[in-house]
């Protein structure tokens, strides 16, 4: 669950929400109130943290925290 924890840290940092408010089911826009630029900020921090590049087409599909975690798990396994 290290990925989820790292992602939570990033989201907390950007959105100033409490870590316990964030679950895998949380929707980035509707629940966590991220706007499009917050999501860009999140992508940048994820790329920096995990040392990978997320294509724009993939990033457009991120709706929930779980979407991001699943994607990162897959990419990190490939590494």
């Amino acid at each position: 669950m290290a990925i989820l924890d790292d992602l939570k840290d990033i989201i907390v940092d950007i959105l100033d929400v409490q870590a316990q408010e964030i679950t895998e089911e949380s929707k980035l826009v509707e629940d966590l109130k991220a706007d499009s630029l917050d999501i860009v900020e999140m992508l940048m921090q994820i790329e920096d943290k995990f040392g990978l590049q997320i294509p724009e087409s993939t990033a457009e599909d991120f709706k929930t925290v779980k979407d991001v975690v699943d994607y990162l798990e897959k990419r990190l396994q490939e590494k």
Partner: protein
Amino acid sequence: MIKTRVTEMLGIRFPLFQGGMAWIATGQLAGAVSSAGGLGIIGSGTADVQWLQREIEAARRLTEHPFGVNLVLTSPHIEENIALVIKEKIPVVTTGAGNPGKYLPLFRDQGIKVMPVVASVALARRLARLGADAIIAEGVESGGHVGEMTTMCLVPMIADVLDIPVIAAGGIADGRGMLAAFALGAEAVQMGTRFICAEECPAHPDYQQKVIKAKDRDTEVCGLTTLYPVRALRNSFVRYYLEQERAGADQEMLRKLGAGKYPEAALGGDIENGSILAGQVSGLVNRVEPAAAIVKDVMETAEALLLNRLGVEQWSE
């Protein structure tokens, strides 16, 4: 003679872009700015491909120097307009209204320089990583679509984290603004509002006069509750829109309220019921003059300021 990475990259004489304002940044205006040594930019806005084709031809008749096209990513005609830009071998595009990330590889493959207009550090970093050639950092002072950051804060923050050049936009109308932007880390500036009042700009004369008459506090930001807030000069339309917005009008209603209002003012000259998009620098614009005179004035003022007022003392001694 001034050289920056931007003038070198584009092969232009002066580091001065004319903003690609929808409908009014035509081939006639862009051609005039480019022949005067700046970078003219045709604003394709939501226009269709026939419009863009015609304006590209118009610009080509006026200048042999490079000019660019601004692409609005939310335009219904974006795909055809991109195809045309590629076919016509336009050397540089600027992009607005969103994130052009997915188009960057396409432009790169075609050798077209891409300079997205950006209002946040994170998006600037992301687009730089995805291959943008330069970033136009636009502050909230600008006319039309606005972000939240001021040019004064945004430009140095973006310049600090990028290796590619930054072009400053928003709040710049003369040589003083240009020099200030250079001090903040920019290597070129983009001006929109002042070029509304270029003789070659087809904005309605009443629209131009409204910009000229405007004072410091005469612009308002409409649509802060929507995804695309815009800055416009206060008039009947803006007052009504803001009343509705403050009363809690929903997104759909606000969208309908604003739809088509800008060309109504810019081309139709209805400056009471249309939307007069213009930046805070309207208060600094005080005449209609040829585009070449604007370019000359900006460069001469910046140069004189640097040489005569700023360049001689050692301030920290």
